[in-house]
């Protein structure tokens, strides 16, 4: 089984939390394939295991069983450091709570992945500034996170996720902390990035708006992928 750039395949993945005797199974036999340039929403009730699946895709933890392939690489085999390097190379991540470093400015936050990648000062400044301009924050480069609104912070974090030119961006409820107007803006931004850069997006959400905007919705229920009619969501 192999896939190309921007493709993501989850095969027979099982996962449980806890160690020793008390193991809580969270994901059972997950099989998912996401194509390059796809904009996919991951939906499900609270506790259904969305965040867990996304973490597995991002290599933040390793699955108990099964394989995860991204860009043709089997990341479920990688060790901790290889996963770090993989994320640096190919992946962007957007958090619900933004997770910007509070003592760095917007520009520095966006710069950070490039600093770890060893990019030269000049080039990474330019690149970070370009990214901030792209998310519509050219006037706010010098601001610290606590001087920015939630929407602005999430824009910064999207810029940070995209700064290393990843082939795939994973986002865990990126609009969860935002009001509906801002949510729309952020959603639009991500779609725009998806179109313009051809970046694959996987977005965890329980927001119907996000689901409606996406190419495809993957439903999780009690740790399993279920087929659901999109009309049913509208009905709820």
């Amino acid at each position: 089984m192999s896939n190309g750039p921007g493709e993501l395949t989850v095969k027979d993945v099982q996962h449980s939390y806890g160690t020793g005797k008390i193991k809580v199974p969270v994901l059972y036999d997950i099989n998912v394939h996401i194509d390059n340039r796809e904009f996919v929403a991951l939906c499900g009730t609270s506790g259904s295991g969305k965040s867990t699946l996304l973490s597995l895709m991002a290599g933040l933890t390793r699955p108990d069983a099964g394989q995860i392939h991204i860009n043709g690489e089997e990341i479920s085999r990688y060790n901790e450091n290889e996963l770090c390097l993989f994320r640096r190379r190919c992946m962007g991540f957007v958090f619900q709570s933004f997770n910007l470093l509070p003592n760095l400015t917007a520009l520095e936050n966006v710069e950070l992945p490039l600093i770890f990648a060893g990019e030269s000062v000049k080039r990474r400044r330019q690149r970070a500034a370009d990214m901030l301009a792209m998310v519509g924050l050219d006037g706010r480069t010098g601001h610290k996170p606590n001087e920015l609104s939630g929407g602005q912070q999430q824009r910064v974090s999207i810029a940070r996720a995209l700064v290393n030119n990843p082939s795939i961006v994973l986002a865990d409820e990126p609009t969860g902390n935002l009001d509906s107007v801002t949510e729309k803006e952020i959603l639009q931004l991500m779609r725009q990035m998806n179109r313009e850069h051809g970046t694959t997006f996987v977005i965890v959400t329980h927001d119907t708006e996000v689901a409606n905007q996406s190419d495809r919705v993957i439903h999780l229920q009690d740790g399993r992928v279920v087929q659901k009619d999109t009309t049913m969501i509208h009905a709820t």
Partner: protein
Amino acid sequence: MKLLDSLRIVWRNLWRMKLRTILTSVGVMIGTAAIVAMISLSLGLRENAVKSLENFGNLTEMDVQPAYMSPDGQTPIPPEQMKKLNYQAVQELKQIEGIESVIPVKSLQGGAQIKLGRREGDIQLMGIDVHESRSSKSDEIEKGTYLTGSANEIVVTYEMPRMMRDVEKERREARKRNASGAGSDPMMQGGYPPYGMEGGGSDAATVDMVGKTATLVINRQFMVDNEPKFEKKEIRVRVVGQLAKSDGMSRFGGNMAFVPLEMINELNKWLNPEGMNQGFDPYGGMQPQQKRTRSRTEQEEVIFDSITVKVGSREQVEPTLERVQRIGFEIYSPARALKEINQFFFVVQLILGGIAAISLLVASIGIINTMIMSILERTREIGIMKVIGATVYNIRWLFLIESGFIGLIGGISGLGLAWGAVQLLNYVARSNPEFSNVLGGGGPGGPEGIQQLAVVPLWLAGFAVGFAFLIGILAGIFPAFRASRLSPLQAIRSE
């Protein structure tokens, strides 16, 4: 990740928790200051001890003598196996590593006078190897030059001109005594043209001998048919130089003079022609070795009074000493005490350094503690960094540098503290001579006292800062590994 970037990040983190950084590095600072102050004090004390030793003479110049005991100091060497201070010994000593020059000295086996104009004085002639001794003795010249290597040159001591008697005046005074009926002076042999212009009481007036031509007078005495006969030899010599006043205790008397070794060998041969004086020894048996050798067939062999070896630096004194002992010679010199001094202060430094090292150990535990606290505080941040592209090694590196920096800050400030303390101590020592005397100035260096009670050499400064940095790095290893092992998922979840 670039070094400059990691330094910038580390600096930012340290700055963010200034107070904690300072408090943690204070531990290192105190430890470093203690180490530096204690070691520099003992270095200074050693320096002073060596300096007072140097007042007994130049430590890099040592007299070599045949050893009476084998190097283990237990078994005596049988007399026939004992080394001799001959030309062979000079050659052997020259082979020894560390010895820069070997200066054989042979004195005239009899008395001599030097005459210069109206003045004359007894003089002790020392034959010295001009070539070998030039480098070391040239510095001691105050006026004129050192022996250049040509024949019939002489270098006198600083005191020599003062020791020249005004013969004319003495004779005049003796005549006065004669006139008052004190009897005749047997020393008077006449033959000097009377100068009349010399005023009385001019004992203090000295002649400048350098550059002048003087006459050496040597007398020999031998027996012919049990009748003592006297013979006189006069040599014209040029006084080419005068030694500087030596502040220490000179090994030689004031009326000493250096002449080329060849001259002395000639004169000694003249004084003691082989077979002519079997029964007569001007030194009355004081030099049994010489008698023995002369009675043997090897009549040409010269036994030196002393052989001085010169080493390049004080550090080479000890190893050279050992090498010289290995080939059967012994060295009697204040430099021998160097070994004991060095050993003593080595032990002192070990003890002081050990005490100070304990305080650094405590400081390093402080660093570990602080770093672990920082990791707890920054767990989330570490997780975020890992998610957005920091590797395990990046994280480890950042924490290592951070804790190394705490060590470095402590080390530099500790060095500053110690330096200040040393300056203060030296100032106090300089302004209170009694204080410095108590602490080791007791040597015959006397009035100069101690200029530096403690010294902070560059190597110590570098070592201290480097060591503090290393302590920081070492203390950071465990926290750094801990930080790098954090699971990004759990790290992000933590609040």
